[in-house]
């Protein structure tokens, strides 16, 4: 989710949290408690880059940008997620029938 959001455009932490909340119509909320450690893990894996930038309000912050490795990883994840999702749907459908 984080990667997908960042694929649209590079964002800073707060914008990212807000973006996910908005896009999912408040259904999903990324806890700050897991957002920042998750971002650091992704940085370490090389999926993201952090660069110095300013927020919408002009304060200094770090903008997170997706790298090529990140895009590849995202695509792999999406494929496997879709497969799993399809599987779940079929099982649910079978249970209904």
């Amino acid at each position, binding site marked *: 989710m984080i990667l997908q959001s960042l694929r649209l455009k590079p964002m800073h932490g707060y914008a990212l949290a807000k973006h996910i909340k908005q896009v999912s119509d408040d259904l999903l909320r990324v806890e700050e408690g897991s957002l920042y450690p998750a*971002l650091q893990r992704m940085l370490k894996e090389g999926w993201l880059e952090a660069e110095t930038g300013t927020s919408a309000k002009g304060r200094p912050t770090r903008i997170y940008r997706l790298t090529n490795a990140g895009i590849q990883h995202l695509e792999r994840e999406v494929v496997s997620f879709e497969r799993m999702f399809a599987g779940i749907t079929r099982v649910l459908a079978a249970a209904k029938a």
Partner: protein
Amino acid sequence: MPLFSRLFSRNRRYDDISISIHEHIDERIDELMEEGMPRDEAERTARREFGNVTLLEERSREVWEWPRLESLLVDLKHVCRRLGRSPGFAITVVLTLAIGIGANTAVFSVLNSVLIRSLPYPESQRLVSIYLNALGAPGLAEFRDELRLSASMYLTFAAHNRTFQSVGVWLPRTASITGIAQPEQVNTAMITDGVLQTLGVPATAGQWLNAADQEPHGTQRVMLSYGYWQRRFGGDPGVVGRTIRLDSQPREIAGVMPRGFKVVSYDFDLLVPLAFDPVKQPLAGFAYRGIARLRAGVTISQADADIARLLNVWMDSWTNGPGSDPHFYLTWKITPALQPLKEKVVGSIGKVLWVVMATIGVVMLIACTNVANLLLVRADSRQHELAVRSALGADRWRIVRELLLESVTLGLLGGAVGVGVAYAGLRLLTAIGPENLPRLSEISLDGRSLAFALILSALSGLLFGSIPALHCAPSRQAVPLLGAMRTSSVSRERQRGRNLLVVAQVSMALVLLISAVLLIRTFHAMHNVDPGFSDPVSLQVMRISIPETLVRDPQTITRLQNSIQEKLAAIPGVSSAGFTASVPMSGAEPAWDGVYIEGKNYAGEQPPLRLYNYVSPGYFHTAGTRIVAGREFVWTEIYGLRPVGLVSESLARQLWGSASAAIGKRFREYPSMPWHEVVGVVQDVRENGVDQASPTTVYWPSMMHDIFGPGSFDARRTVYFAIRSNRAGTQAFINEMQLAVWSVNSNLAVASISTMLDIYSQSMARTSFTLVMLAIAGTMALALGVLGIYGVISYAVSQRTREIGIRMALGAKRSELAWMFVRAAMVLTAVGTAVGLGAAAALMRLMRTLLFGISPLDPVTFTLVPLALVAAAALASYLPARRTASVDPVEALRAE
């Protein structure tokens, strides 16, 4: 990502995290304020929604960390800080360990260089020394533990063997070099073809000697050692092809061997080819040392079988002359027992080194025990802190780890200082070590020694650390009651740990002391043996060879030697002089053969072999060797080639029953020799060192008829002059001796100048070296052991001050209280002594070969040493125990 850039970029990462998070909160605040919330409420809400900022930052940071390592680093920092706060403790421990580790590393380096490292020849594991046993040769064992090879054996082995890649024989000799500077005696290694091929070290300049140099009538070239090349020719590369005069004969220099190259363990100046006549050789002449390189894949037992086969070929192919039976040597039962060359080089020193290593290892154990004791005391004083930490939830492993980390840090610090100690120790060791310690020059502190030091430090850290760590780490179930800590007496369990350490120390110290004292007594016993010469300090010895090319005629040789002897005797301060073919304990190659006595029927049997020596008139008087019966030779007998001889006391007793009975009896070496009359009997001489039995010896005149029939006679060309003077050993005296020799013939070189004392001490070097090492180790052990007892008792006294106070208040006498502590120490010492006596008795049996003239279970040593140790322990415990007397009961109880 490389480790370092990661470490450096980490701080930047941490900043990034904290900036991001703070901006996040600020933005949320702005948003809430835009929704109309007052600032402080907005701030509160934003922070509440975000959660614990510090925790989050930490979590985010952890992504970049190695948590185990980092917590270890933090612990390490704590350890260093704590050690820094008690520098006295830290320095004591580090120094104790440094000395222990240093001594161990030094001795290990010697062990490693001498015993473990391979010899400095390529593929040296294939090198063997050709060792022959001749168990059937009567009397040989008295002066030789092996039968050397004869030239005919070498020729047979070289031509017909199936197991060697190359084989050669060699022997050490001396020769004189003239024409460069002053005439000079040099050490030569006489080698046959095959010796250089076997050792396989290429020449550094020029080329090897080759088969052409083995031609008996060819022009034999020579090779230089690196040292001689540097010393005499300044390392001039143009020296190859030049000519030097060796024993007055011109020889072309074929090449130079590289630095450090030795023939087996012999450090030579010149390599000179042995040129055997390949046709005319007798079977006998057992003088050469054989070495060979095995073919790849050949085992020693295969080579043994090959040599056993060749010994028959040898007896079939050669003869000792018409009428002799070549198969007579079957009675000698010659059997090959080839051994790896390394074993030959190292010899018996291996045992000494292992003993020294074990001793030093025990000292290290004692040092560790002492340190463990110190740490126990220290951990005791931290009991309170550890209990609190444990109560607050620190897990047991974490506390153990921290304690162990402290001890390992101490161990490594000690090791680092110890390497310095080892370096200094090695210099000391090579200085006091026996000069005949094989491979002395190869000793160095190499990677393996450093690895040894590192492992030893870490291991000792773990060892002495684990005792307090396991004892003191509070278990969760039994967190000591904090309040009770101060008032309760020391827990029995912990006291037992300390007691065990003391018992171990006492027993180890006892073992070391007993071995040191046994060696001191061995040394003493060796000094009390009459070596067969007197007052070695004032006996000057030197060697002079008269080469055949300088003087041919034996009569002239004898006149020359006689006039040298007279000139030497005329030097001021000299009381007498004489000469002999071989001085005792000098390690010179012995001459030997059997003697037949008149009137005995041998019926084809061979008489036992006797050691042969050749002496001048006045030699025994000069050396201080007692004449038991009869007299020495006189010059008229020498010049007149009179058939006379002297025998050693043991030989006289063996052959004729007593010394006086031997006078006037006659004997000879071979049937065609005239019967020689015994004119004197001399006391037994310890030819091979004071700890070796005196061989039965025949002394011939320095000039006598030889085997080539009537009218043919020979004189010894190489003789040792012995000069009795109280100026012996001084440089001025040596110069005067040189001048005296040159006044007779200026082409003669003087060599092997030493006093008899040097030769005598050299022969005891192995024992004195072991003695010094054991004495040092024993003293250290005693000091550490006594210190350990002192420490334990003094700690017990300070811990039990309160108890003492109560006892005193209740009316106990001061002396009784002191006695209570001394008694406790005595019980520990007694237990330790009992254990130590048992261990020592078992160990001394292993050391038996190092001892001389004393039983390994010498009752005097086994009584006196424990008594001395107990006395020392009593003193060590009495000193702190006396302090109980100064305890004021009021003070002691008020302290609570």
